[in-house]
């Protein structure tokens, strides 16, 4: 009896050892961990995605990426619609550390990654009458810029921040990195880019008294 138990125990140990050896010899598949944000870039300390305060007009938007289209319309030769994947595949990506300054008094310095707004607009072919670029968001928010601001500067439309994909509350799939402008010009959840000749167009907060240029070196209630 004792010999039988001893034999069974020995066999179990041998089998367990063999199983251990087999599983450890086999190369393991790479697991997917949650994205970790970069907190320092080229010696510069970065803010966390959690340092942003939620102050959008209708709360965080959950955009269904399967139905999502970014359209470019208005005074362009080739109006176009792109899926999220098409944008990521077809446009050169760039990285830049830019600080967002909110009118509420807080700021956040982030490593942004995205494509240049001017690349997308140039491909659509702006007509000569186009003066203003109006950005529309999923929640109905809008803001606008003179066409020169977008075309003469390297303004990013970001899809990553601090090395991780944008979170829904941070503007997934795309947020404008409107550097040198107050935070209300950094439109999130972009769905449409419209070129217009309406220089009197005012966005959501601009209609409510905020500066239309939104220049950081001026007060946000300064008349333009």
């Amino acid at each position: 009896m004792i010999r039988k138990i001893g034999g069974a125990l020995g066999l179990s140990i041998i089998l367990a050892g063999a199983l251990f050896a087999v599983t450890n010899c086999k190369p393991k598949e790479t697991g997917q961990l949650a994205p970790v944000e970069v907190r320092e870039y080229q010696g510069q300390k970065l803010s966390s995605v959690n340092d942003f305060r939620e102050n959008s007009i209708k709360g965080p938007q959950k955009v269904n990426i399967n139905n999502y289209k970014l359209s470019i319309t208005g005074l362009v030769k080739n109006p176009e619609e792109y899926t999220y994947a098409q944008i990521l595949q077809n446009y050169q990506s760039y990285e830049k550390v830019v600080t967002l300054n909110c009118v509420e008094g807080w700021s956040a310095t982030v490593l942004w990654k995205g494509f240049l707004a001017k690349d997308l607009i140039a491909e659509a072919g702006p007509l000569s009458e186009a003066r203003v670029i109006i950005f529309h968001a999923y929640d109905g928010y809008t803001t606008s810029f003179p066409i020169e601001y977008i075309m003469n500067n390297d303004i990013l439309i970001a899809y990553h921040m601090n090395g991780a994909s944008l979170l829904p509350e941070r503007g997934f799939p795309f947020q404008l990195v409107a550097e040198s402008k107050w935070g209300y010009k950094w439109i999130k959840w972009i769905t449409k880019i419209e070129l217009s000749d309406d220089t009197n167009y005012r966005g959501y907060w601009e209609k409510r008294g905020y500066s239309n240029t939104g220049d950081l070196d001026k007060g946000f209630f300064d008349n333009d």
Partner: protein
Amino acid sequence: MINNALKSHIAKAIVHWSLLALVVLYFVTGLGITQYRAVEAFTFGLLTKTLSFKVHNNLWFPFLVLLVLHIYQRIGKPNRTYK
């Protein structure tokens, strides 16, 4: 004499209550900036974020004046009672 004491008491009361009102206004307009969706709904659209900003940013001077008066009334002159 009684009149002066009464006047002083009324002046103190005005400063105290004004200061309290201003503190509440500071607080509410601050919320009107950071929690503007809730405050706009709660005030039926009366206190917008833009208005909150404008009021909040201009409160510091009257607040300072009332605070100085309040401190002066308490420290500069001892409490007096009137009958």
